């Protein structure tokens, strides 16, 4: 019995991140309004970013910025040895700066497309747009 509680304590964060991803994924597939789908795309991307950042999290680690380490020019040997276990893993943070910027770029393009579609069909509902295409 205790190992089930142990896994739950150790893993519940991942399960919540996956439910967030699935909320976004569901919105992309099932929503009828185009802007709602764009919101779903963004939720899906942000949830994956959350998953990546949580890979690097460490209990008892501080933020990945080296305090009170004054580098004297090039050969600034730190006054005391830097132990990796004190600091949080910086690599997922670097990757996720890229992913956030990519999600904003995709958002900008998607909204421009939505404006173009609205300019032609005067609606954002997918079923109404398909109906108007069939009329032509």
């Amino acid at each position: 019995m205790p190992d089930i509680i142990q896994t739950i304590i150790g893993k519940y964060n991942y399960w919540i991140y996956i439910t967030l991803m699935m909320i976004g994924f569901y919105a992309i597939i099932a929503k009828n309004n185009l802007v709602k789908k764009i919101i779903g795309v963004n939720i899906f991307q942000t949830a994956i970013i959350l998953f990546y950042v949580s890979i690097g999290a460490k209990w008892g680690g501080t933020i990945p910025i080296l305090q009170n380490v004054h580098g004297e020019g090039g050969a600034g040997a730190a006054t005391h040895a830097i132990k990796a276990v004190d600091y949080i893993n910086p690599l997922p943070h670097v990757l996720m700066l890229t992913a956030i910027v990519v999600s904003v770029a995709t958002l900008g393009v998607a909204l421009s497309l939505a404006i173009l579609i609205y300019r032609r069909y005067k609606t954002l509902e997918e079923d109404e747009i398909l109906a108007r295409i069939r009329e032509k």
Partner: protein
Amino acid sequence: MTWELDLIILAFVVIAALGAITIRDLLGAAILFGAYSFMMCLLWAIMGAVDVAFTEASVGAGVSTVFFVAAVFRTTRRTKD
């Protein structure tokens, strides 16, 4: 990084995400999406990812919401679902 705070913010994030999808007004969805991004930025700040939190605050909560509101002004607030 106390896990209670972590759990509460996660709950807010999930509620904001569900709200942003189910609300029947696009401007409301844009505002709720801004709240979702800001909650996400809080979560990362708690987890120690300060650079990512700063970027999400300025890029995700800030500019994304402005783009959404601008796009909603240029199209329509009406949604059927």
